[in-house]
């Protein structure tokens, strides 16, 4: 057996956890697996934050060195994705109710190339590891727009998630 990987999203004030989410669509509602057409973001406003974790189940000895980056996809005018991912000065985000106000947690630009080292921690540290089933720290994202962002769908983005398993 080896590790099984899933993405898990947390929502709501009392933190409802949904394992095995099927998408990371941004929208104007705090909910997993949303259809963005049903919850559009108005130009100049933000999406609700996404509070995502990597969940590892199955049998493994160690999981470590998580790296996440946006490997393809381009922004439209005025669009940006902010995140808490970082390779330096890292501190794990503590869960708080997702907001559509400008995030105070997701304050870094989403990396668009493979980072030089891990940028999402485990157990509060970039050098942390899992030796049994569990979650990474929170990966927090928010899509932000400006008044000049054009109407309609934004471009699809591709995220790459990498980890080491021994």
């Amino acid at each position, binding site marked *: 057996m080896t*590790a099984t990987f899933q*993405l898990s999203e947390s929502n709501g004030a009392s933190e409802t956890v949904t394992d095995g989410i*099927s998408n990371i669509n941004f929208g104007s509602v705090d909910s997993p697996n949303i259809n963005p057409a049903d919850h559009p973001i108005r130009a100049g406003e933000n999406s609700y934050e996404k509070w995502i974790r990597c969940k590892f189940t199955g049998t493994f*000895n160690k999981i470590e060195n998580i790296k996440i980056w946006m490997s393809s996809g381009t922004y439209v005018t005025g669009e940006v994705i902010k995140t808490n991912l970082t390779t330096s000065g890292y501190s794990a985000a503590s869960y708080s109710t997702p907001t559509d106000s400008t995030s105070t947690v997701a304050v870094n630009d989403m990396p668009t190339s493979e980072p030089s080292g891990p940028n999402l921690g485990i157990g509060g540290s970039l050098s942390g590891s899992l030796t049994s089933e569990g979650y990474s720290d929170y990966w927090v994202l928010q899509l932000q727009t400006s008044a000049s962002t054009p109407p309609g769908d934004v471009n699809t983005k591709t995220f790459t998630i990498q980890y080491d398993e*021994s």
Partner: protein
Amino acid sequence: MPEWVLRYKDKSIICTDITEANKLMKEEQPEEFYIVIGNSCFGVILTTGQIWVNGNVICCDSIPKSKFRFINFQRVKITYSGKEIVDKSVEYFLGWQTTYKGKNIQRMINIKPDLTYEIIGKG
């Protein structure tokens, strides 16, 4: 799917996953450890630190009387686009780490998904 082989003096053990192979490594270190992927074979001789590919040693100078700490892990890369996983690839890393003359030395072979490889390390 790859197979991980631990070769001892008097026996070989074949594992079908990395978790099992690394668990066995903790119990008793074999003389040699190798991965079989398709028709290719990538190994490390743990008594000398030499790394080989398909039977040919490609690295490294032997470090006398060193105790090698074995390294064996896989790097999983998952790509999501829209609603689905569009790609999942695995690279393998196999090698050792030791201290020699006060320096930490590490050598590994990095086997890419297309079975090309490179030696990486520090020290």
